[in-house]
């Protein structure tokens, strides 16, 4: 395996959890809900994924457990913000704190145990092609799932009636309600989708990225995913670009450091943030496009008149 090939493979590995969490949050925000609990849902996905995989010795059961944990956390958020009308910002922050604390508690018994690695899909012949094989066909199922979910989300949002309804609910919930759409139900669905994606992102961390349980192993990726959504102006294609750009600059920084180039490590580790923000600011320079894609109702509670 050549060095270049290794770099590309690590970039894909670093970008996948960001992409998964960001595309889920994008759909949630498109429906007008700001869920700041991505980090908490992600870490719960990581610990539950690891615990289930270790107990059952099946990585796929771990993935399923991560998904369920993410959805469960997000449904708690949905119940609080949509049914009980609590503040989305405060509830989202609490969800992150809850996730970090609860995952530490659950994970205590699993710290330091050998992990179960999610196997790469081994496609006969295709995976064996030199260079292209490992890069295109040598990944685990979650890498492909992240790309498929992104493409699927873009298709649903822009090509289907369901996507139109989600955009409408996020753009003007009073109008959507007046037209007879169930705003709360649509938002429950989008929040659960976002939670599921965050859970998968977490499971990817503890089953593929570093197959073990380490406390706080999400280390801020949930926040990066949140920022990616905003800077991508709620467009799935840009979230994909942003996630991979971030992953690429991050990995390059590590390699540059390993090569012993005399750049302060702090600068290198802040570089992905700077590059991603600058790049996304440049591509989001079109104000009309930004305004059209921004969910106008984001963060606002909706209570139908009775």
């Amino acid at each position, binding site marked *: 395996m050549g060095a270049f090939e290794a770099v590309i493979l690590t970039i894909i590995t670093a970008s996948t959890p960001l992409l998964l969490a960001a595309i889920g949050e994008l759909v949630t925000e498109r429906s007008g809900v700001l869920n700041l609990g991505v980090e908490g849902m992600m870490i719960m996905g990581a610990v539950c994924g690891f615990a289930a995989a270790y107990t059952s010795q099946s990585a796929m059961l771990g993935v399923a457990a991560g998904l369920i944990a993410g959805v469960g956390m997000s449904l708690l958020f949905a119940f609080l913000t949509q049914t009980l009308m609590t503040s989305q910002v405060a509830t989202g922050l609490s969800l992150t704190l809850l996730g970090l604390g609860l995952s530490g508690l659950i994970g205590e018994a699993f710290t330091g145990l050998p992990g179960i690695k999610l196997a790469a899909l081994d496609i006969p012949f295709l995976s064996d092609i030199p260079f292209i094989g490992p890069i295109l066909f040598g990944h685990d199922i979650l890498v492909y799932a992240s790309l498929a979910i992104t493409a699927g989300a873009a298709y649903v949002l822009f090509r289907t*009636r369901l996507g139109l*309804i989600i955009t409408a609910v996020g753009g003007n919930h009073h*109008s959507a309600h007046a*037209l*007879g*759409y169930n705003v709360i139900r649509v938002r429950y669905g989008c929040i659960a989708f976002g939670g599921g994606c965050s859970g998968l992102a977490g499971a990817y961390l503890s089953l593929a990225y570093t197959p073990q349980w380490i406390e706080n192993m999400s280390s801020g990726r949930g926040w990066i995913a949140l920022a990616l959504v905003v800077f991508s102006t709620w467009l799935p294609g840009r979230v994909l670009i942003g996630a991979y750009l971030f992953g690429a600059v991050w990995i390059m920084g590590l390699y540059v450091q390993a090569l012993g180039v005399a750049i302060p490590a702090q600068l290198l580790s802040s570089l992905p943030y700077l590059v991603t923000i600058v790049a996304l600011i440049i591509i989001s320079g079109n104000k*009309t496009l930004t305004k059209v894609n921004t969910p106008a109702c984001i963060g606002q509670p909706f209570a139908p008149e009775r």
Partner: protein
Amino acid sequence: MSGSAEYLLEARNIVKVFGELRANDDITLSLKPGEIHALLGENGAGKSTLVKIIYGSLQATSGQLFWQGQPVTVANPGAARDLGIGMVFQHFSLFDALTVTQNIALALPPDVDIGTLAGRIETVSNDYGLPLRADALVADLSVGERQRIEIVRCLLQEPRLLIMDEPTAVLTPQEANQLFVTLERLASEGCGVLYISHRLEEVKRICHDATILRHGKLVSRVDPQQETAASLANLMVGAEVAAVKTDRGGKTGKPLLELSGLSLPTDDPFGVALKDIELAVHAGEIVAVAGVAGNGQSEFFDAVSGERPTANAATVKISGQACGKENITQRRRRDAAFVPEERIGHGAVPDFPLSENVVLTHHAVAGGVARHGMINRAAAREVNREVTQLFDVRKGTPDPEARSLSGGNLQKFVVGREMARQPKVLVVNQPTWGVDAGAAALIRQALIDLARNGSAVLVISQDLDEIFEIADRIAVISRGELSEAYPAEDMSLEQIGLLMAGAHEKSTSGVAGS
């Protein structure tokens, strides 16, 4: 219990209670196919509550609806649409960020093919004389065009009953005429129309029957053809409405507010840029700026008040002094006062008591409300007491929070607060928006009295009746350009309509933003 098959819709003994308030108290209404039925009443009379119940957005506390003689429950707007009830909302239920086709698709049943919808929209809209471009983004359309979307959306559902909530409030006179033609055609095809308005002339013109509400109760059912606008108004208000006294042709003094070459680009993609505005308002006169909503009125107000200073100081002069670069507080110190359109949030802080809201606009001007950065609360309360007494602001406690006042009372407060200091220049946007007839008359009279006492008053309004009632001169704003100000007695509704449609515009570009 069953209804009469003669009627398309009957609402019997409808009661709707919100907490302590009986918004609808035993209201009965019936409407035949092919009939245009007016629903009249002041703000807060319960009209909107009643139509929301008919449309399924609200559920009645008690009472029964009948559709073609059969008792029905309308659980939600979807159920109403299934029956054949369509509604055009006063505050449009449109999505700015979506196209015309997408907006309409959202209101149609899920099995409608979006691919062929664009063609149907253009066919139906042209057929009824309401042309629409199916792929246009709603944000780029004028208010009149937005209303067409709502109407076409209803027409595509082939409604049996069309509910229209104050449809002409946002239209030019010509657009309103076109709407009346459409409604008459629908009625002739057997569709019933429930028409909410407080423009009595148009009710007399197109409606066959009228139900009048007051304070949630049914007052009477009359034939509008047999009534005069004045008798309808008296039924709505329950008392004689005081006529506003104006004596035009008084002497005007030197110009106190001058705008020259005022241009302001917009930083909001959905906003309107101001183009080369020229206007002078003299001491002793009221100049009104007419125009359809969304043609730059709020940007114009922001530029004149200093909420958005301009790059060139000479574009705005108050009492002869260039002040285009100054902010609103600096302009207030030049004895100018400003009343914005939105009373809650912009004109007043909802959670502050009235006296603190007085401080917010009085702190920089004479009157002792604030000195050396310290607030004199006693002085603020005194100003509040004067304002609320003079303008008949009705409130439960002496100094309540702004949010606890009803819309009309808060409007009297925000207008009165600025007038209390007898400013030399007053700029007011929509002075009587959403205010009932009695309060509106009070505010209009106060504006006239202020001008007659030697102040220059600039009124931005979309209410043409109001403009003709109070203005000495009238200018019209359309797409950010302001026409010359013509003497009110020389202006007709038709002329204003032409100006609203852009007859004076120098740039004859098409749709903004294209």
